[in-house]
Every structure is written in structure tokens, then in C-alpha cells.
């Protein structure tokens, strides 16, 4: 078995086996969907049943997919990468005859797949309950690869940001900044179409939109295959960036002691 596939499998199994953490995440997800349902439902009602083309149902299916894609990724991933680099633990990982960043991303992707699968099933059931059926079943089906691509782009991007610790020896500040970039420019809290036009244009050219906005947009009924292509393009760029940051960082890493 390829080491990367083994890493993916390890991440998947270690997330599924202790059910406590997973059940907390699902409970957390349910609360978010309940709150967002109340917030956006009230907002849509107050605006005559539509907001920039979104109906109550399409907006809540947007929230479901955007949140599933983001919550699948370990929230403090950037900070943990920074801690491992700053603390020198990364040096042990460099002894293995595999790419450090490749194996790390494979494990993270395994974990994310487990979380997203459970969140997708539970979240879709809850959203159906709160908002009724999705605007389009084919769009919902297309949201599955979009969620997976969004989470993959998020993982690659987290590693690129976390890799800053090779130079700063800490990634706490990067983590906070990164999280906020996914929240608003990424479209997790509010669809980009609802932002003021100049801000929408800026956010749309950043990679963060592929992590939450695109899965949400597709699940809201816009089954445009070009959106998936947009994600694939940014994913390739972010993977290259993460690999480049780690390659450069590993060359300059100095660890004292054993």
C-alpha cells in the first residue's frame, strides 16, 4: 500500500473510532444549522422571500454545503503544523522516505473524509427538515465532489500558511488570520453574492472562495461544472504552493538537540 494511501486510511479510521469527538462535531453542526436557519430564514422573510436570487431553501442548502466543507477540516490545523515546526517535531517526520507535506495532507484528508461523510448525511437530513428538499437533486449530487475539493483546497492552503512557521517558528497568528479569510472572503458566513460589489469581486479572485462559497453555490441549485473547474485550478495551485513552502522550509530547518 502506498504510504500516502496508508496515511489517508489512518486519518479516516482514527477519526471514526473514538465516537465522542465526532458526535460533538455533529452536535455543533446541528446547532449551527439551527441558528443559520433562523437567521437567514428571518432575513429572507424580511426581504420579500428573496435575497439576490437566493430563496430561503436555496440559502439554507448553501449554508449546509459551505459549513460541511469547512467543518470537515481540522480547525486548528495551521496552528498544529506551526507547533510541530516550531517545536522541532517536524524533524522526525523528515526522517521518513516520503514527502512530509504529502503524508500530512493525506492524513488530514482521511480525517476530513470521515467528518464530511458523517456531516453530509446528518446535515442534509437536518437541512431537509428545516428548509425542505434541495432546489435540485443533481446540484446536490454535484455538491459532493465540490465539498471534497473545497476541503482539499483548505487542507493544502492550511499547510502553505502553517509552513510560515519554518521562518517565524510559530503559526498562531497565521491561524487566526487564515480562519477569518475562510469565514468572510471564503463565503462561509455570508454568500459572496450578498457582499457589496467591490468586495465581492476581490473575494472572488482569492482562493478561499473555492473552500466554502463554491460548494454552497452549487448546493443552492447552481450546478455549473465550471465551478468545479475553478476549484480544481486553485487546488493544483495550492498544492504546489504547500509543496514549495515545505521544500524551502525543510532546506533551512535547523533543530537543536535530539
Amino acid at each position, binding site marked *: 500500500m502506498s504510504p500516502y494511501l496508508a496515511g489517508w486510511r489512518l486519518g479516516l479510521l482514527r477519526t471514526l473510532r*473514538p465516537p*465522542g469527538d465526532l458526535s460533538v462535531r455533529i452536535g455543533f453542526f446541528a446547532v*449551527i444549522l439551527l441558528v443559520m436557519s*433562523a*437567521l437567514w430564514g428571518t432575513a429572507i422573510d424580511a426581504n420579500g422571500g428573496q435575497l439576490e436570487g437566493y430563496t430561503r431553501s436555496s440559502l439554507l442548502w448553501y449554508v449546509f454545503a459551505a459549513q460541511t466543507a469547512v467543518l470537515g477540516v481540522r480547525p486548528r490545523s495551521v496552528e498544529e503544523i506551526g507547533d510541530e515546526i516550531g517545536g522541532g517535531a517536524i524533524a522526525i517526520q523528515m526522517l521518513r522516505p516520503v514527502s512530509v507535506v504529502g503524508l500530512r495532507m493525506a492524513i488530514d484528508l482521511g480525517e476530513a473524509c470521515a467528518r464530511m461523510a458523517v456531516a453530509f448525511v446528518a446535515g442534509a437530513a437536518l437541512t431537509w427538515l428545516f428548509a425542505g428538499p434541495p432546489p435540485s437533486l443533481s446540484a446536490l449530487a454535484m455538491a459532493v465532489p465540490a465539498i471534497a475539493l473545497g476541503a482539499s483546497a483548505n487542507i493544502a492552503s492550511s499547510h502553505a500558511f502553517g509552513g510560515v512557521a519554518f521562518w517565524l517558528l510559530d503559526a498562531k497568528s497565521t491561524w*487566526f*488570520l487564515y480562519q477569518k479569510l475562510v469565514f468572510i472572503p471564503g463565503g462561509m458566513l*455570508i454568500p459572496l453574492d450578498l457582499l457589496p460589489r467591490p468586495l465581492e469581486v476581490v473575494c472572488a479572485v482569492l482562493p478561499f472562495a473555492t473552500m466554502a462559497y463554491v460548494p454552497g453555490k452549487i448546493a443552492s441549485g447552481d450546478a455549473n461544472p465550471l465551478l468545479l473547474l475553478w476549484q480544481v485550478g486553485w487546488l493544483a495551485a495550492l498544492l504546489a504552493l504547500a509543496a514549495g513552502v515545505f521544500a524551502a522550509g525543510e532546506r533551512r530547518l535547523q533543530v537543536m538537540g535530539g
Partner: protein
Amino acid sequence: MTVVTSTLRASLADAFANRGSFWFQVAVMVVNDGTWIVFWVLFFHQVGTLRGWGTQDVIVLFTILLTSAGAALGLLANSRRIGHLAAAGELDETLVLPVGPLSHILTSRIDPANMGDLMFGPVLFAVAGNPTPERAAVFVLGSVAGSVVLVGFLVACGALTLFVGGRGEQADLGFNAILIFASYPLDLFGGATKVLLFTAVPAAFVTGLPAQLVRSFNPAHAALLVAMAAFFAGLGWATFQLGLRHYSSGSIWTR
């Protein structure tokens, strides 16, 4: 000086030991809070008012949340860690001391990041909360009562681990639920959810009711808030004390 104030002073000194790190974490949390303000401004810019709530009303609610959560999670940082401490057998070091265990645990750790919330909340209220002497007094009352409710609820959730086991997941779920619900205007919710917010997940008493009191003071509602703060303080204390009877030592010092 009482044991509680001595412990709190020692915890503060510990947190301040690395001043650069302390202020950095405070600054990062302020930036984090600023993101939420940006979100609300963008949201209301798009949707107008919601059931009588506008940007300024939500900012007042947010200042109460920052202040009460800052006190509960910054000054009394262990309030959300009771379940984890119990699961890991880490209550031993407190139980051997001749002090009240709950007060000692609560005051023995300070979280610098959440201290940023505690500092930023009142400043934001002064700048954007249209402060008058009356509104400021109600803001203080609401924030204090909200933090007592929050601490009592978190301690009760954490103490559940002592009864049912696990790794502290009950506290994590309670923590996430109450903070999310407390971040949004109470009037958004109706039916069973609203009942939930006044009972099992008392977010209504952390921000919703205090924010309504700041907008329009009502003595009966203020009395209810104070009574509920006393109730949740008692609930947290009683659940913890009863749960201690089920606690098994982690034998951490002999490992």
C-alpha cells in the same frame, strides 16, 4: 486576602509573565472580534433590520457577549475545562488542598486570548453602544449576570463527565451550543428553540435578556435575570459537588 483572590492574583501574574505573548494574544482576539463586527455590518447592509434589530442593537448584544464570555473564559478559564480535568484525573492536585475545590479550580488559570474579549467588550460598548449612565449601568449588570450564568452552565456541563464518563465531550457540546446561540439576537428564534434558550441551553440569560434590558429596561426582567444567575451558579456548584463523589483519582503523581 482570601484564598480565591490570592489564587486569582497568582494566575494573573502567571499569565503576565510573558507580557509580549499576553498582549499578542489579546490583540489577535480583538482582530477576531473585529471580523464578527464586519460580518454584522455587511449582513445588515444587505438585509436591513430584522424583527426590530439593527446593526447597533447587535453590536450591543455582541459587547455583552464579549464581556461575559471574556470574564467566564478569560478570568475563570477552567470553567470550560472541568470535564477534561475530571476525565484526565487532574482534579487530584486541587482536592489535596485545604480550599474549596471549585473556586480554586476556576481561579487557577487565566486565558490571555479571552482576556482580549473582556477588555474589548466594554471599549466597544463605550464607542458604539450609545452609552448613557443608565445604559452603562444595565450593561454592567447584564454582563455580570451573563457571566455568572455562563460559568454555572459550563461547570454543570463539565461536571456531567463525573457522572456519565467520557472525555469531556458534554462540556464541549454545551460550550459550543451556548456561545453560538448567545451570538445571535433572541428574537430570531421561536417555538421550541426559544424555550430551549431559556432552559437547557440558557443563552437567553447570557446575552439576549441583558441586551433587551439595555435597549429598554424592565425591573421585572432584571429581577428574573439576577434570579437565574443565582440559580445557575447554584446548579453548577451542586452538580460539581455531587459529581465529586463519583470522581476517581488519576494518580497522576505516581505514574
